[in-house]
């Protein structure tokens, strides 16, 4: 079976982002870009499923401008077999993104589509669920453990109340949470090898996907800043302060 993994190019998680003073967005010029960390976990899980003998091929896909191929190469260096780049310079919102992924899934017939639970730029946490809906497939979001057994997957999910387990028939969409695994480090020879792996570029127009109604961003601002308070010197001082405020 095949596993299709969606990855997104985002501002690296270590970057302290700057909001542009004119409210037009977040500064990304010259900023380090990386694969969305949750997507990296999704790639790693797909590779582990393949290494355990439960899949034959891991395909990674991304949607975006030319530069996104860097992230596909990273995924190929991690061990993915081939890559698909859906080329567009337009901003793609989750519902349209899910429609594109569905078009790819229709073409490739994977048994699992694995995605990160959310991208750390727009923090939407939507695409996997939307793909599940559009495909009429089961979804297992926020996965912290995935067990494949023939045509079913048993997925442990991180939910507010604890750990929930679902059993889903394949094909299914699974979204990766933080504790699913620790992605491997990429070694130099693998980076060289990745350069020779197949990377197919598809023009977005060739997929025949209808662009969904979009949410319009009117402005972007820095959040209200929380100011640092005071340092207290002792527990007594702390207790006095909290008692004065009626908190204890």
């Amino acid at each position, binding site marked *: 079976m095949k596993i299709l993994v969606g990855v997104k190019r985002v501002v690296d998680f270590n970057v302290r982002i700057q909001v542009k003073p004119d409210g037009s967005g977040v500064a990304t010029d010259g900023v380090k870009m990386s694969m969305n960390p949750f997507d990296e976990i999704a790639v790693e899980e797909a590779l582990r499923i393949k290494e355990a003998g439960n899949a034959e091929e891991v395909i990674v896909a991304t949607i975006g401008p030319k530069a996104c191929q860097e992230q596909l190469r990273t995924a190929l260096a991690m061990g993915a077999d081939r890559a698909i780049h859906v080329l567009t310079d337009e901003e793609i919102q989750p*519902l349209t993104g899910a429609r594109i992924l569905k078009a790819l899934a229709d073409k490739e017939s994977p048994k699992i589509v694995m995605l990160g639970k959310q991208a750390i730029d727009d*923090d939407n946490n*939507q695409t996997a669920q939307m793909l599940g809906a*559009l495909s009429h497939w089961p*979804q297992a979001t926020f996965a912290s453990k995935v067990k494949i057994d023939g045509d079913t997957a048993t997925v442990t999910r*991180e*939910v507010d109340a604890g750990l929930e387990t679902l059993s889903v028939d394949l094909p299914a969409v699974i979204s990766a949470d933080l504790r699913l695994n620790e992605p491997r480090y990429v070694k130099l020879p693998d980076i060289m090898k990745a350069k020779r792996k197949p990377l197919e570029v598809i023009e977005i127009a060739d997929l025949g996907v209808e662009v969904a109604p979009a*949410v319009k961003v009117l402005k972007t601002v820095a959040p209200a800043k929380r100011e*640092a308070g005071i340092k207290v010197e002792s*527990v007594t001082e702390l207790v006095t302060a909290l008692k004065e405020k009626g908190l204890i």
Partner: protein
Amino acid sequence: MSKVLVIAEHDGSNLNGSTARAVSCASDLGLDAVDVVVLAADGSAVAEQAAKITGVSTVLLVQNAANENAVAAFLAPQIEALAVDYSHVLAPSTTFGKDLIPRVAAHLGRPQISDIMRVESATVFDRPVYAGNAVVTVEAPEGLVIGTVRTASYKAASNDGSASVETRSVDVALPSHTRFVGLESGGGGDRPDLQAAVKVVSGGRGVGSEENFKVIYSLADKLGAGVGASRAAVDAGFIPNDHQVGQTGKIIAPDLYMAFGISGAIQHLAGIKDAGTIVAVNKDADAPIFEVADYGLVADLFEVIEELEKAL
């Protein structure tokens, strides 16, 4: 007539506090009515609780054996069928709502507004991006508006309402591809729920071990507080995942948040920035948590907790 439908979160017998927070956001829309839907196997008790939320006009009760557990693939088609009567559909942005709402939105061909933190108009909202390091004002396109509500941004609506409860039957085919296997709770015991707690005592990597976390629980019990943790503490196995506070854990807004041995990674701070008063205790005077703490104390957390317990 424009109306909003709020999806109730519950565990079969109790309404989750996130629902009343989502109702507060729904009331801000200024529409003709705020309705709540309870999807359950046997939900009359939950529906009665929902009917008491101030501002709710009607509680729809949809009972179906498939609704015994909140499985998105079962709930989504039922909500889609109900949505035709509404201009807005909202759910709390808890793991329940995050899992469910995009599935509804996609089927209906609508984009979703995640994590609404402020309502500017019935179609314009503020929401956080980049782990709360930026806030965008967004406008939903014409038509049905579907979103999730960042519960930490809203106080729970009060509890003096008297909505009517209407039982509805929703006749849609439900899939057979998903089976609920079980839920393993982290075991918070009788402590207040983290997302509803007025006070929260939280521990980080500095606590050092699962065994040492006892002092955090003990202080929490003395204060009647919920227990939280940083991602580092959860990853290290000191405490179960459902205690994690932060961007990918729970986003909370207690009146008092006490952080012990938490350095204050940006992802953690994203989860506590709406707290009333933040107290930070850390040995490292340069820990970033001090940049947001109202009261910082550079000291050994174990000594501080011991002294605190004596002083309380």
